[in-house]
């Protein structure tokens, strides 16, 4: 057991755990941030995507010992059911979820894009979202939701 000091969603946390614990387990089991999901555990599906140091990462592949001082953000940082963020609202508006298991990862993957590029082309959205899989097949709605969020932000909407 080692104590790790993590910056998650703007708050400091101290977690006692083994160095080989994946960041995903720490987020879910120790910090009760259950947005990110365990899908494949192999970095193949993207349902565990969070943002680390401004970049999207699959948190199942990140040993907690590798995080260091890098700031981590999860879908909980964007808003909640009462006050959804722009991306979350766009996913609701497009009804872009079926079972919903992949959606937290999808939204964080999309958020990483929109933070860097406020006016992405459809091709850029497709390329950026390509690591994330949805087994229900709502990819087309997901792409529309990201487009909608991008357009709303471009029109001056708040994140």
């Amino acid at each position, binding site marked *: 057991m080692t104590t790790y000091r993590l910056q998650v969603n703007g708050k400091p946390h101290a977690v006692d755990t083994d*160095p*080989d614990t*994946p960041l995903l387990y720490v987020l879910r089991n120790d910090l009760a941030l259950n947005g990110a999901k365990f899908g*494949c*555990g*192999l*970095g*193949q599906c993207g349902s565990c995507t969070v943002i*680390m*140091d401004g*970049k*999207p*990462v*699959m948190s199942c*592949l*990140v*040993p907690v*010992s*590798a995080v*260091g001082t890098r700031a981590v953000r999860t879908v909980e940082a964007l808003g909640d059911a009462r006050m959804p963020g722009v991306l979350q609202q766009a996913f609701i508006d497009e009804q872009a979820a079926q079972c919903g298991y992949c959606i937290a990862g999808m939204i964080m993957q999309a958020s990483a894009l929109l933070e860097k590029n406020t006016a992405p082309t459809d091709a850029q959205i497709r390329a950026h979202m*390509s*690591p994330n899989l949805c087994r229900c097949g709502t990819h087309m709605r997901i792409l529309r939701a990201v487009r909608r969020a991008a357009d709303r932000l471009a029109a001056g909407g708040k994140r």
Partner: protein
Amino acid sequence: MDRARRKRHTGWWLLLAAAIVMAGIAFGIMWRPAVAPQTAIPSFDQARIGRGANLARLGMCASCHTADLARPFAGGKPMETPFGTVHSTNITPDAATGIGAWSPEAFARAMREGVSRDGHLLYPAFPYNHYVRMTQADVDDLYAYFMTRPPIHAPARANDMTFPFGFRPLVGFWNVLYLDDAPWRPDPGRSAEWNRGAYLADAVAHCAACHTPRTRLGGPDLERQLDGGEAEGWYAPALNRNSPSPLPWTRAQLHAYLRTGVAEDHAAAGGPMQDVAVHLAQAMDADVAALAAWTHSHLRQAPARATPAQRDGSLPRPAADDPDLPRMRLGYALYADSCARCHDVGRAPSSGTALPLQKAIALYDPDPRSLIHIVDTGILPPDGEPGRWMPGFKAILSDDQAGALAAYLRRYGAGQPAWPDLDEQVSKARAP
């Protein structure tokens, strides 16, 4: 005194004559006339077009000449070279911006001599030093194929060359050194299949363009044929006795690799080699088998080596007396926590199966470039193609972590001496 003056005059005259001769030779090397434009595109029979299509795939023309899949052969793809950035050109039959005005003679001259229809010299990023040995029949079939593609209006993008390479006539001197127009000759001691493979590899698929090292002048180092080169910042492995492969290749594995980019127990193609496999997957299977036969005849010269690849199992923990213990421990931890989930043994072949890392050729390369590329960006199938998918770790691993992982894999995965320039290569690959 008169005699002395006459002598001096003779000297001047000789110098002038020499200068004129030199200028004449330089002019002959650097200048080519235009070929008259054709006003109509001839018609071709279907068989020729089909043979041309196969040759275009074997030659991987689209690899450079297609920048956007929606606009095939319209050019515009940038290629970094040590002499500047060259953009591929439009080879659709558009009369104004493509090669629609090119007669068969103009096309053949470009393929064999690297000269555009209007007479300007093409940069050798276009591998005419290979196509020069293509048979006339094959050049004609390729012409038939390109002349029957949909014409696309796409003006050439300006190149960005470093001084003085923007002056194209200088390429003439490169041609004197590296353009060998001796026709290709079969080796009567070899099988027809091997000879077909040898011809395709040299004159069409131009394997040596990446797998042979280049001289400082950007030409092939002919003393070191197939001795390993470079492609888009990746190490292109030696295909001769110096092959870094830890296990001997069979012909069947090579055939599968060339057609699918994946060979069990050996490799999943990354970087520019993925594109090669995409093109060869669409070529005639007998031709790809011939390429595999030819490649195998070179690769089999590599001596059998005792390598960790012969053994199965997980990679070991670092030895307690390792002189670089803290770094190796970090590398091992990252291997165990991030890589081993897929790269460890015991997983039956499936979409998630990955190569046990002691078998990964990139660990045995003479430099770490390909390994760093794979760790950072993963293995992504080419646009629109199915294939193995490995996530990239650039956002996950810091420079120190990536360096420690590569150092650990080199020592405990491949059992090879450390790469001396590893840290430098990691920061170079990750420079913004």
